[in-house]
Structures are given as structure tokens and as C-alpha cells.
């Protein structure tokens, strides 16, 4: 009798969603019982850690010493420290929350050491009452909670700019995206307290880092869902994420969520700061550049299998990854094992919601055949993640920012995985 869980739903071995839950299939197919590490069987079945009392409690926990995962591809500008980026190790993580210590970093002049008692958020410009807020004061305001992704608009750019697919892993390619639960004060409440004057149209945000990093935010966004975030994943912001307070603009390019927020100036025009002109603008083939392209587009990436996370014994494997969109909720993620010739719908997991990441999963029967794994997401606006070719055609390879092309992973007959454009 044929077992329907083994009947592919798309080309090259994609299986129905229930296939991974069928334990008997795993053994039957020779994915096999994984060999137990020998240490676990030492001492006649009682391993060393069962032969005496364990460690005591700690004031602040840390990962197991056996877990060595960390942020990767830390790159500083030559001659500087702390100016550059570090990336979230996407392939090593599961679920949809990024641990705060693994949230990607992008700094322009290092991480400042801020005295929270001395720090103030100043609001001025086209307001009736210029105001200064202490952290202590902001903690007494009504707080709101937002589960949201944050993505640098330069994320994945190398896959657009490099003419040949660079042999890089998923963290290096796409690790400038993370997700946290952010808690903070709605910016609209603070602007209301200051009182907007006629003509107010933009809010110029500035950080308390050595670069005094600055971006212009449309007032409509500031009054909509912007918050002054004080907490990340339940605790105070980490220093590298803006301690003691940062601007957080859901769905917008990460650079605008100004960290170490110190000053908000309400104006009638954008300031045209360095980071919204010389950077974070998309140069088109005709030499002109698109500016103020704030919202992050619909995107997904397979995190496993991926480079460095290849396949061993033949059998059933999970294909999994993350999907997100700044324009709406993720409604669908499709996966292909044959380079996009045929597709099947992946299972979606996670709290989801507007501006939130979802986890997707798809069972795959790998029997040593070469494959090209691809995912493509569709959001609630109906927008579907484009291919690299479509984006190269539409905006050329120099546009760099807001690249959301489909990621293709080429799997060899040996089970190794590498980045691919074909």
C-alpha cells in the first residue's frame, strides 16, 4: 500500500507537510536513528553530569558553554573600531525571536557608554513647548508592545551587486535582519505633549553616539506607529541596540530607527542628512537615485539547508526559513527544490501579524540528487518576492539597498550547499 506522506507535492522530492511528523517514515527511509554521542553513555549509562550536584544559580544566565554561536562577519571600517556591522547567525536559530545578544548591529561610530540617569530625549523645533524627557519619566508613560522585525536596507545587497554568486553563508548574506519584542512609549504621545505647530511635516532624529547619527522621519510615520523603545525582549535595550532608548519605526529600513535617541527636531522639511543622501539611496542605471524608500519589501530566505548547514545521510530533511514584509502580513511562502520549476506551499508558524516574521517549514526527501532550493513569500498586499533577475532588470546592480530577491541554494550530490544565481 502506498504511503501518501511519501508522494511528492512538487518536483525533486518536496513532501506533504505531514511528512516530518511521521516517525516511522524516518527510520523506514534510512534517515536513521542518529548516533548518540559516546559521552552520553559513559559511566554505565549515568553520564558525568548525573554523578554530582550541578552548578548553582546565577544573577544573569548565559548560553551553554557548548553553544558557540555568535554574531558573524563583524567588519569595521579600516582604522576604526565599532564602525561597521555584525550579523545575526540565522542558520543557528529557530523560531522567530532573535536573542537580544544576537541581534544584528550596525554602528557608525561605535557603541556609546551612556549614563542612563544623565541621558535626555529632547523634543524641539516646530512645537509649542520644547521638552526634555528622562528615562525615569518615560517609564511612567503608557507603554506599548510590538513584535517586529528590523532589517538594514543594505541587507543581502551583495547578492545584487556581485556579478557572480559569492560563496557566502546565510548570516553573511542576509543576517542584517532580526526580530524582537520592542516595548516603548508611542512617539505620538510625546509629540502631543510638546504640541505640534502648523507646518510640521518631518521629525529629524539624532542619536547620542559619537557620530550623532541622524535621519529624517515623515511626521505621518512618527504619529502612526513609531515608538521610543525602552525594552527589547523583556529587558532594557542592549547597549548595541540603543540603550537606554531608541526610536523604533516598524517596517522601515533599520537605519531610521535611530539608536541612543537624544534629539527629535520637528521641521517643515527633511534635513537631507548624510545617511539619507550619500547612503540609503538607490542609484539607478540612468544615474538618478531613489530617495526616501523607507518600507522594507516582502522577503524570505531558507536558513537551513544553507552553506555550512548541508546534508548528510539520505532521508527526509526539513527545509526551514524566515519570511517578513514591511507592507503587510506574510500570507504564503512557497518552496521549490528544482530551482523554481515547481513550487509547494510551506507551513507557516509563529505569532505573525503586521511587521512580524514568520517561520516556514517544508519536508524534503533527499536521496542524493542535486537540487536548487528556493523560497518566495507573498504578503497581504498580494506582493510576491521577486527573483534576482527581475530586480537587476528593474533597477540595475548599483541600487544596493532594499534588495529582496529570492535566495537560491545549490545542493550538490554530496550534500554541500552554496549560494547560487542559477
Amino acid at each position, binding site marked *: 500500500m502506498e504511503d501518501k506522506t511519501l508522494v511528492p507535492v512538487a518536483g525533486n522530492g518536496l513532501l506533504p507537510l505531514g511528512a516530518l511528523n511521521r516517525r516511522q517514515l524516518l527510520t523506514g527511509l534510512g534517515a536513521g536513528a542518529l548516533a548518540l554521542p559516546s559521552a552520553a553513555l559513559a559511566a554505565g549509562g549515568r553520564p558525568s553530569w548525573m554523578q554530582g550536584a550541578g552548578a548553582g544559580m546565577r544573577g544573569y544566565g548565559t548560553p551553554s558553554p557548548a553553544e558557540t554561536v555568535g554574531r558573524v562577519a563583524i567588519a569595521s*571600517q*579600516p*582604522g*576604526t573600531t565599532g*564602525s561597521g556591522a555584525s550579523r545575526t547567525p540565522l542558520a543557528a536559530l529557530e523560531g522567530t525571536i532573535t536573542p537580544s545578544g544576537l541581534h544584528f548591529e550596525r554602528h*557608525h*561610530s561605535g557603541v556609546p557608554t551612556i549614563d542612563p540617569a544623565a541621558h535626555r530625549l*529632547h*523634543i524641539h523645533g516646530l512645537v509649542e513647548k*520644547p*521638552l*526634555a524627557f*528622562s528615562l525615569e*519619566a*518615560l517609564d*511612567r*508613560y*503608557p507603554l506599548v508592545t510590538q513584535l517586529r522585525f528590523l532589517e538594514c536596507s543594505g541587507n543581502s545587497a551583495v547578492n545584487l551587486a556581485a556579478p557572480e554568486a559569492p560563496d557566502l553563508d546565510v548570516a553573511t548574506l542576509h543576517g542584517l535582519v532580526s526580530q524582537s519584542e520592542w516595548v516603548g512609549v*508611542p512617539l505620538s*504621545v510625546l*509629540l*502631543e*505633549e510638546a504640541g*505640534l505647530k502648523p507646518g510640521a*511635516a*518631518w521629525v529629524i532624529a*539624532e542619536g547620542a553616539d559619537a*557620530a*550623532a*547619527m*541622524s535621519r529624517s522621519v515623515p*511626521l*505621518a510615520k512618527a*504619529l*502612526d506607529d513609531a515608538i521610543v523603545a525602552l525594552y527589547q525582549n523583556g529587558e532594557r535595550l542592549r547597549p548595541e541596540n540603543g540603550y537606554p532608548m531608541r526610536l523604533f519605526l516598524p517596517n522601515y529600513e533599520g537605519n531610521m530607527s535611530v539608536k541612543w535617541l*537624544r*534629539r527629535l*527636531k520637528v*521641521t517643515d*522639511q*527633511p*534635513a*537631507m*542628512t*548624510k545617511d539619507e*543622501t*550619500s547612503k540609503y*539611496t*538607490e*542609484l539607478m*542605471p*540612468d*544615474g*538618478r*537615485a*531613489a*530617495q*526616501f*524608500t523607507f*518600507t522594507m519589501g516582502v522577503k524570505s530566505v531558507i536558513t537551513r539547508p544553507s552553506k555550512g548547514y548541508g546534508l548528510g545521510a539520505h532521508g527526509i530533511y526539513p527545509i526551514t526559513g524566515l519570511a517578513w514584509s514591511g507592507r503587510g502580513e506574510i500570507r504564503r511562502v512557497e518552496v521549490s527544490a528544482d530551482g523554481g520549476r515547481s513550487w509547494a506551499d510551506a507551513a507557516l508558524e509563529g505569532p505573525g501579524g503586521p511587521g512580524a516574521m514568520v517561520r516556514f517549514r517544508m519536508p524534503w526527501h533527499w536521496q542524493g540528487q542535486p537540487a536548487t532550493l528556493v523560497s518566495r513569500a507573498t504578503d497581504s498586499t498580494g506582493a510576491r518576492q521577486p527573483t534576482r533577475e527581475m530586480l537587476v532588470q528593474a533597477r540595475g546592480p548599483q541600487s544596493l539597498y532594499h534588495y529582496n530577491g529570492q535566495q537560491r541554494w545549490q545542493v550538490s550530490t554530496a550534500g554541500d550547499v552554496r549560494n547560487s544565481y542559477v
Partner: protein
Amino acid sequence: MFKRAVSPCLAGLLLAGAASALAAAPGAPGLGAPLTPEVLAGIELTVLPTGEGLPVGRGSVAQGAALYQQHCQACHGAEGQGGMNGDLVGGVGSLATATPKKTVTSYWPYATIAFDYIRRAMPYTAPGSLSADEVYAIVAYLLSRDGVVPKDAVLDAEALAAVKMPNAEGFYPGE
């Protein structure tokens, strides 16, 4: 000019957003402390493309050349090019080619950006250490490298805001 092109549509968004957001803030304790002009004067750094926010001061290309050697060239190279951190000049006219070179002179749409950025963030190891006169001078020197201002230029607030950058019309509002 881009500012005018984008303003009308934003004004519409604004009215809608302001009406709803300003309706009420239940439980807001109103704890903002008055921000005095004296405190504000010490922290204000924003320079707008109109020149609003530029301080009193002036500096010449010649002064800027000396200051550049002292404060900038270690990272940005002799005469604004060839350093370990990004060329600041050159590349004018290259943006529509297969190898565009984005620099202050080739890409940045307003001269005010250079003043704003240098004053807030440079030199990397000692931001905030340059006087207004020195920032004007360094901007003048950089712009002179590609002929955006004459070799004998002296920049102050009025002159800087009046500078026409080569790529002033190069940006448009994206989606």
C-alpha cells in the same frame, strides 16, 4: 527641487495622521521638563538644505587645505582620494556609468550636508572638536577639488547654502 515635489502629498498624510494620533493619550503623565534655549543651543546640530542651522563663521579653501592634511587625510587620502576610508571627491559625471563613484562632490545633493556631517561626526576620533570656521574651511577645500567652488572661495553660511552641487537634481522620491 525635491523638497517642493514631496511636500503636497506629505501634507495630506499629515492631516490624517495628526487628527487620529492627537485625539487623546489616556494616562499620559505629562512629565516632559521645559527645554531651555540655553540647553538647546548647546545640543543643536541640524543643518537644513536651506542653510537654516548654519552657524556664524567662515573659512577659505587655503585654510581648509591645511586643516584637511591635519585632520582628514590619514583616513581619506591626500587631497580627498586614495585613503583607506572612502574617497571624498572625484567621480563627477560617473553616476550613470557601469562604475559609478559616489563622493561628496559627485553624489551629495547639497553642500549643507557636508557641513552638517563633518560638524556632527568628524574627525572620527574627535567629533565636535572642530570650530565652525574650520568646518567651513574643510568643506570649501573639498568642494574646490572638483571645481564646485573656486580655488579662492571663502564659505560662510550664506555662501555655503548658495552652492549648487553637481548632483543637486539627482534624487527623486522613491516608493
